[in-house]
């Protein structure tokens, strides 16, 4: 793959590597030295003899080996000549961290055009400029210029994350690390002089470590190609997009009614649905959806939800939220009802949402989850566990995980609380059972799972339709042209 050098380079030059600890070039080079990066990293700086005890090279040309990747962190006007050097040395990929391009002024825009012209018809691919580059916890590529004590790096996991904004990307990464959420690859694309979201979708669709792709974009440079790439991804793995900079305002001066109703938000929402993209409307949703879609299997034909709870109120709120979203609660079949009556105390009422009552212990959860999970009327399970009661212990995590693994039904947890709860939240995360602090967020994540499952069904339906040939559909289309 032509983007491999960004993620699996054997040799990297950091251009603008500096001895000043607060300079970007210093932090980036230090990342390579201090991480478990297996390849070779060369600092390039004409003004220094050595950095972190390693010999520096005055220019890319002097580096005594072939280079897969150049990370460029020098002021914008110095970038074009460095690109020339990279081209003459046949460097395969470059990440331009530097700002001061299109986002700054006209002069910066001209610099971008100049670089674009230089790499045209060459093999050199570029990410950036004005970005924080790439973080890959598997190959330990880390071009993030933010020090680790400020931005903790997430562990290896199934979620890929593409962000047009570097600041947004780094904040989310730091937060993900704090929640023990693992990622497969992070790419900050900045001004997208060459590599854009379309290229990356095409690359990540084949990346076996990536189970789910999340994207934050403000501008989509190649709209129709983006939709095509998105449907290719959606066929294979879930794609969640948070699109910034959309507005509901139609063109009020428009000559047609349609034009005045067509806000970019609405067209975008329609386009995403069509391509099988799960659209996130908020930052919360982006990662909430990603965790459920990356960790849990898809529901089969049956998509009705069973709610199992030890708190009545949370069960009611979840039910309300589900019905608000048009989701259906499962009707337990008679056998399930019989089993539950046997296993549950008399004062528990046996219907969905299933309230195990405040004195529920782990054993009660275990038998309830077993009964509910084996019910063919149940497609998805929402487990609400409030850990403030002393009846329940941390092995409820095992009970939930076991029933998920045994019955293979997508399972989402809702639990909220302080330090004790947080320990269990991390255990659940470790077991890849997504948990959320509020019923609304949990149900919303389930909704995203159902949306994606339905989008996949539509994709298959379309394929069948196309295979059967559209001849029949055409015949229907071409009948009476005027009303009688």
């Amino acid at each position, binding site marked *: 793959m032509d983007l491999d050098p960004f993620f699996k380079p054997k040799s990297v030059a950091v251009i603008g590597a500096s001895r000043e600890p607060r300079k970007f070039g210093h932090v980036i080079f230090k990342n390579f030295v201090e991480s478990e990066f297996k390849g070779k990293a060369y600092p390039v700086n004409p003004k220094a003899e050595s950095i972190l005890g390693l010999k520096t090279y005055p220019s890319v040309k002097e580096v005594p080996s072939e280079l897969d990747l150049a990370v460029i962190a020098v002021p914008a006007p110095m970038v074009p000549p460095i690109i020339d050097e990279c081209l003459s040395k046949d460097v395969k990929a470059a990440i331009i961290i530097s700002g001061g391009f299109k986002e700054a002024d006209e002069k910066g825009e001209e610099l971008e055009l100049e670089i674009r012209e230089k790499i045209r018809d060459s093999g050199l691919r570029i990410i950036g400029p004005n970005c924080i580059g790439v973080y890959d916890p598997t190959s330990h590529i880390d071009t993030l210029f933010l020090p680790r004590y400020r931005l903790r790096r997430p562990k290896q996991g199934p979620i890929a994350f593409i962000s047009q904004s570097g600041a947004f990307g780094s904040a989310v990464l730091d937060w993900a690390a704090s929640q023990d959420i693992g990622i497969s690859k992070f790419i900050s694309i900045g001004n997208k002089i060459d590599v854009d979201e379309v290229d990356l979708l095409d690359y990540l669709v084949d990346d076996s470590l990536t189970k789910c792709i999340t994207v934050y974009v403000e501008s*989509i440079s190649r*709209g*129709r190609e983006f*939709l095509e790439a998105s449907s290719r991804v959606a066929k294979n793995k879930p794609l969640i997009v948070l699109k910034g900079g959309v507005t509901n305002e139609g063109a009020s001066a*428009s*000559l*047609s*009614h*349609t*034009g005045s*109703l*067509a806000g*970019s938000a*609405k*067209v*975008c*929402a*329609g*386009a995403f*649905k*069509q391509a099988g993209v799960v659209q996130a409307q908020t930052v919360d949703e982006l990662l909430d959806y990603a965790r459920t879609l990356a960790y849990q299997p898809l529901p089969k034909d049956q998509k009705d939800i069973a709610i199992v709870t030890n708190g009545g109120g949370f069960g009611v709120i979840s039910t309300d939220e589900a019905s608000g979203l048009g989701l259906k609660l499962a009707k337990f079949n008679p056998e399930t009802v019989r089993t539950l009556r046997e296993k549950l105390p008399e004062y528990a009422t046996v219907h969905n949402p299933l309230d195990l009552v405040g004195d529920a212990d782990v054993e009660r959860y275990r038998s309830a989850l077993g009964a509910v999970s084996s019910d063919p009327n149940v497609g998805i399970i929402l487990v609400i566990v409030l850990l403030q009661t002393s009846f329940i212990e941390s092995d409820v995590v095992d009970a939930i995980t076991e029933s998920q693994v045994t019955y293979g039904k997508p399972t989402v947890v809702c639990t909220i609380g302080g330090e004790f709860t947080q320990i269990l939240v991390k255990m659940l995360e470790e077991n890849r059972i997504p948990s959320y602090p509020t019923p609304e967020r949990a149900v919303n994540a389930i909704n995203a799972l159902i949306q994606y499952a339905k989008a996949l069904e*539509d994709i298959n*339906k*379309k394929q069948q*339709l*196309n295979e059967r040939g*559209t001849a029949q*559909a055409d015949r*229907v*289309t*071409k*009948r*009476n*042209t*005027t*009303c*009688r």
Partner: protein
Amino acid sequence: MLEMKECELIIQKALREERSSLLIDEAYRICNLHHIPTPKFQVVIRLHEAVEKVNEIRYPVALKIISPQILHKSDVGGVVLNVGNEKDLRTEYEKLVAEVNRREPSAKITGVLVEKMMVPSTEVIVGGIRDSQFGPAVMFGMGGMFTEVYDDVAFRVAPIDRVDALNLIHGLKGSKVLEGIRGKPPADLDSVINVLTNVSDLMMEHDAITQLDLNPVIVYSDAVCAVDSRIILSETGDI
């Protein structure tokens, strides 16, 4: 294909005459050529001609003013609905022309469209636009209050297939109306889907068309009919 050729000729003629929108009869013709049903219609330039042509269409009819300078016909009194007999046709025709002349003296009236008055039923809106990010797109909305007040419209990017069209319809809050509520029979969804896929084709085939309105499309249990059509060629020219 001959149909496409004729559509292009209509569009080219309008562009040559520096018009940024099509006349109602041209827009209807393009719809018909794309298998989108409209009422039966005739263009006349004299009252006696109208009286004569009604025999083919039959009462009741609607009258619509045709003028390159008038895009919003009803705003200038340029539409008369439910004309039921010859006596009314004679008075309404003269009143229509006089009223438009009074309100828009500078507009050149090139004719009057006489069209079959369709029986009322559920109304929907179908549209086409070119989005700056995603290109040609199709809009669907439920008519009346649903669109005006609740903004209940949705889009898909062209070209759309029948699965997209059905999802587009079902994505609307108001689409329950089409299933037949309050004892009404369910709507002819197949024909609504045809209109959507045909509008999609139309937007894909004619680059010069920047916007299109079929507002409203009347939906019956066994047919649909677009009873107004507006086709915009460019936003820049004068209307």
